[in-house]
């Protein structure tokens, strides 16, 4: 989903013509960081992050983890909700009130979270392949515009910028924190590891290909100012004089991707509050959380302010996403909690 927003442009702002290199660097970092995080779940097989928090840092740890993850995801929802509503308003429905567009996303999130995690995952399983096909059509559809000289000079804005500014971009992968919640459902540590690496591998594939396609189609420095890069690419697709303006076909794909992303983030908020505070059900939380997320998304005065907030979210997101489990791992090691060699029972 982040690929459909301004992610490729953000890599261009870091690496210039070497945006793809910045994406590859961040991808490598994401694997390293996940390897460290997975050591925590190796020590505590079949436990989610809240239970691990309780075991390593007591009840306070559990509550803090619940609050941090819920707060972070709520912040993410408010930004993504606003951003995608603004995008829709800019490119498809310029006259519709922003609140109307945001309402549809929030309603879809409320319904899906109300129906539960299984429904959410099944819906994702149905639509993600469709979204993927749409993505490939865009990437291959613009192939006549590929010009590989556009990734030259090879080091773009320089190694210092790429390595320095690229590091906080591992925040892009914080969506993987859904795995911290799902750990008990995955039964074994091996499954957790496998799902984690596959998720990161696929995410990295989409991130790197989207950044590369964007940089070889739109030359630098224009690429650093292009709003909605993948949409900009889709506007270039045409086959002869009869197959044109295909970007409208991709709108449902983007809306679906946004709805799924928001629903999952919404689930994380409600689930984190429920687990953090040991509540019996998260259903009573859904409507209040929806109203808070909706309200927060309208705090920014403009899309430019939202972009600023997004930079904060993309820069510091690694703290709740990766910093928190690494901190728990350190506490567990110091306090000798969990079993370093523990093997989970077969599924």
């Amino acid at each position, binding site marked *: 989903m982040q690929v459909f927003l301004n992610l490729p442009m953000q890599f261009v702002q870091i690496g210039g013509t070497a945006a793809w290199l910045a994406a590859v660097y961040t991808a490598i970092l994401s694997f390293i960081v996940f390897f460290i995080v997975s050591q925590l779940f190796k020590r505590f097989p079949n436990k989610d992050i809240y239970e691990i928090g309780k075991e390593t840092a007591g009840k306070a740890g559990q509550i803090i983890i619940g609050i941090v993850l819920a707060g972070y995801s709520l912040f993410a929802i408010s930004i993504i909700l606003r951003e995608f509503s603004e995008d829709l308003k800019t490119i498809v429905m*310029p006259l519709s009130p922003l609140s109307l567009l945001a309402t549809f996303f929030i309603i879809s999130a409320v319904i899906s979270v109300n129906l539960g995690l299984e429904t959410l995952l099944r819906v994702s399983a149905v639509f993600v392949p469709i979204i993927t096909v749409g993505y490939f059509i865009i990437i291959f559809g613009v192939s006549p515009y590929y010009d590989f*000289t556009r990734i*030259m*000079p090879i080091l773009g*804005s*320089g190694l210092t910028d790429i390595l320095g500014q690229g590091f906080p971009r591992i925040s892009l992968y914080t969506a993987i924190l859904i795995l911290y919640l799902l750990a008990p459902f995955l039964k074994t540590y091996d499954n957790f590891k496998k799902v984690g690496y596959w998720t990161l591998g696929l995410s990295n594939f989409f991130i790197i290909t989207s950044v590369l396609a964007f940089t070889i189609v739109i*030359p630098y*420095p224009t690429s650093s100012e292009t709003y909605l890069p993948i949409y900009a690419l889709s506007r270039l697709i045409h086959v002869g004089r009869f197959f044109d303006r295909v970007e409208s076909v991709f709108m449902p794909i983007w809306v679906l991707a946004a709805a799924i992303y928001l629903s999952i983030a919404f689930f994380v908020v409600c689930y984190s509050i429920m687990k953090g505070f040991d509540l019996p059900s998260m259903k009573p939380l859904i409507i209040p959380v929806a109203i808070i997320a909706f309200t927060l998304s309208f705090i920014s005065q403009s899309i430019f302010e939202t972009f600023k907030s997004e930079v904060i979210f993309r820069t510091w997101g690694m703290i709740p996403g990766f910093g928190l489990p690494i901190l728990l791992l350190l506490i567990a090691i110091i306090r000798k909690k969990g079993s370093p060699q523990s093997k989970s029972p077969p599924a």
Partner: protein
Amino acid sequence: MKKVIILLILITFCVSLTACYDAREVDDLAYVIAIGLDKGKNSSLKITFQIAIPKNLGGGGDGSQGGGSQGGKSSAFENITIEAPAINPSFDMVNAFVGRDLLLSHTKAVIVSEELAKEGILHLVREMIRNREFRRKMTFVVSRTTAEEYIRSINPALEINPAKYYDLHYNSGRYTGTSPYLTLLNMYNRMMSADRQPAAILASVNKSGLESNKSTAENKNRNTPFEADFYSGDIPKKSSLPAEIMGTAVFDGSKFVGELDGESTYHYLLGCNEYGRAVWTFNDPLHSNQKINLTVIKNRDTQVRVKILNGIPNINVSIDLEGDIISIHSGENYEDPEKLKVLENYVNQHIKNGFINTFNILSKKYKSDIYGFGRSAKVLFPTWKSWENFNWEKRFSQSNMNVKVNFHIRRGGLIIKSHPAVSSEGKE
């Protein structure tokens, strides 16, 4: 009760999700086909809109054509010119007297006058890029006359649909080689690019007539002009189609700085690898007052290598072409492999000289790398900063050119040997 609530929600969604807020009925819109931009007299801009009249686009039997109402025939489009402070506000001004909301999603071309382009047009191009309704793929054209005059002179005799006319007309460079094809997005990208400058189709209105002697032949020491020795608007002709395109408008940054004629456009397109095919005329190497016509076709992509020696770029270009004989006026048997070599060598040298001449015009006179040789040069730099510091735009004017042309004639049409005519005085 639950089912009733769900049903009510679904009905609400069905109604609200049809995007009624943004509904724009097809029948309520005015489709702008082309936009012309000139310097205004009382306002910043003079803008000309060519708006389609859909009911006349159906290809009915009334023989309707474009170009405004002519001789009582219904026109396929209407031309409107207004003075406005900027492009976007002009839409509302037009809506003050046109009953339909202007729609720009189907605009095929934007035409800017040379006069306006000389002042720099980045702000206008950016205004169009920012507006989602403008197609970034629409053709960018520079007119030697005012854009208004050019648009009003468009009278597509062979097309009922003017949009198709623009598509076909502006794409003709791929088989004539005398005009480039650049879009609004190309212009925008290149205006801010550090490795390539913008160029555009050069258009004009022909008022010269058949007796016109405006050509660039004299500059090339030719007694008579060849087919591409013209700028747009100078082609000697008698026609009801006064609008024409030939040549290239050259930009330096966002400012128009000069023109290339049709033949120089061949060389420009060869240099930037956008040449397809064209029919060229050459002097006969063995009969100086006779002509030979060849179809010159790109055989392989043009290879460009740049080396930088003591801060001076040395550009090495390798052009690979093949040709088909179309006509040999002298009747010389160039189909003979020995004589064919003579012709090939001559053509080779001719193209090489022409290419260097065009390069010198662009690098020394206009100081504009519209070829995009900078794209090959920037490979030599590790970072963007070092590339920017090199200042390619400035160094390009000091660069040296080495060009290698590899030209071979492959075919001779349906004749494989030329015989002279036989008269009462023997063989001519």
